[in-house]
């Protein structure tokens, strides 16, 4: 029993995450022959695993990263306070030099941008491309990128970005093809916006009509409207917003 006391302590250390590799090997060896310790050890492993699993999310950390980044304010004016850690990372002098350089770059780019024509100066950095492409297009469809005020004409070779809003004119339509070959066909006189929410691209039909043809099996698929969210239960459905 006194021998097992040592291993019971090692099990606790294992649970605390403070066990060394050699101690862990020793513990594993011991549990091969000692039933009482084996039982306790297996329960401890299981306790750790089940809790980890029970608290995992359907959203992966990569998806969370993408989702949070799109929601960050465009330009956060972070004031670096006089916190103790600053001086250890960047000496005050170096910080001042860096700020000077940033200011110079800012002034220069402002100057350069100011001299370019309006279309270019209003160009904004596009949000991440989404795994989706334009599959068909007829008539006049306008697109507005996130952060921009100008509508541009959609061309067959345009790429699709998160934050885009599409507007189809009369007698026009367009089709978006998703990663799994599912398609969303947007009818004339409609407006569709793409946003990123909870790790997924969200389709918002502001007005008009769209038809989704989903390849099964598909995950949960929604089209949001100003009046609520419509979930796809089958493979084909049409949403109309008056």
């Amino acid at each position: 029993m006194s021998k097992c006391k040592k291993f019971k302590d090692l099990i606790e250390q294992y649970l605390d995450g403070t066990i060394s590799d050699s101690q862990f090997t020793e513990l594993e060896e011991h549990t091969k022959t000692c039933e009482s310790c084996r039982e306790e050890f297996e329960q401890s492993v299981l306790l750790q695993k089940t809790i980890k699993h029970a608290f995992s999310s359907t959203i992966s950390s990569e998806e969370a990263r993408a989702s949070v980044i799109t929601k960050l304010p465009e330009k956060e004016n972070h004031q670096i306070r006089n916190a103790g850690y600053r001086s250890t990372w960047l000496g005050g002098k170096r910080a001042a030099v860096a700020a000077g350089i940033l200011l110079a770059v800012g002034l220069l780019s402002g100057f350069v941008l100011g001299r370019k024509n309006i279309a270019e100066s209003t160009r904004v950095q596009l949000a991440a491309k989404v795994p989706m492409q334009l599959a068909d297009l007829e008539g006049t469809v306008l697109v507005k990128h996130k952060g921009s005020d100008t509508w541009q004409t959609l061309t067959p070779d345009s790429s699709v970005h998160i934050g885009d809003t599409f507007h189809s004119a009369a007698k026009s339509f367009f089709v978006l093809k998703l990663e799994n070959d599912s398609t969303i066909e947007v009818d004339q006189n409609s407006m569709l916006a793409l946003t990123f929410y909870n790790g997924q691209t969200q389709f918002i039909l502001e007005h008009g009509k769209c038809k989704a043809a989903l390849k099964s099996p598909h995950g949960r698929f929604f089209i949001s409207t100003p009046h609520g969210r419509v979930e796809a239960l089958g493979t084909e459905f049409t949403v109309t917003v008056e």
Partner: protein
Amino acid sequence: MADKLKHKPTGDRQLILATLHGDNSAFGTIVERHWNMVIALALSKIDEPAEAEDIAQESFLKAYSHLHNLQNPTRFAGWLSKIVIQQCSNKIRRSVRCKTALGCNSMPLEDLDIKYTKTTNPGLSQSQIYFIRKAVRQLPEKFRRLIIMRFVAGLSAGQIAEQISKRPGTVRVWLHLAYKILRKDLAPLLERSENEQM
């Protein structure tokens, strides 16, 4: 297997400083690194997974906008965990207020298990997941945070002590009390799973 320590406090510190200098992708790396802990903390207080996910994201946005207030960037995980807990408490307070207001369709607790329709853990059934979450939710607040930081974020008892500015001895004692409660509460599950393995 002994948990390998994925957490690098020095890495956090550099990422935070880069974020403060306007590098948002550095903050993306912070999100990626701490997502599991944050979502688990939210799930340990909020029943509804979609709500917990919203709170987790809001917590990161709040951390981002208050990042310049963080005094010690090596203690980011501890600071972030406090934000998550605070966001959850705010949410709970709002929904309690909502429950007393008219027209609120809050769900009674008993119906919640039906909501768990999807899972990423093929090893555990929905009812088992619900059972485990419930057991952890019933732990005292201070134990709950430690259990998540230990088992989900993979921090050692010593690292947790550093993160939450407590003595390592205190953290170890709290953790052991929590293990004891959980072993007792989850006994049916731990024993049953073991029999299944054999």
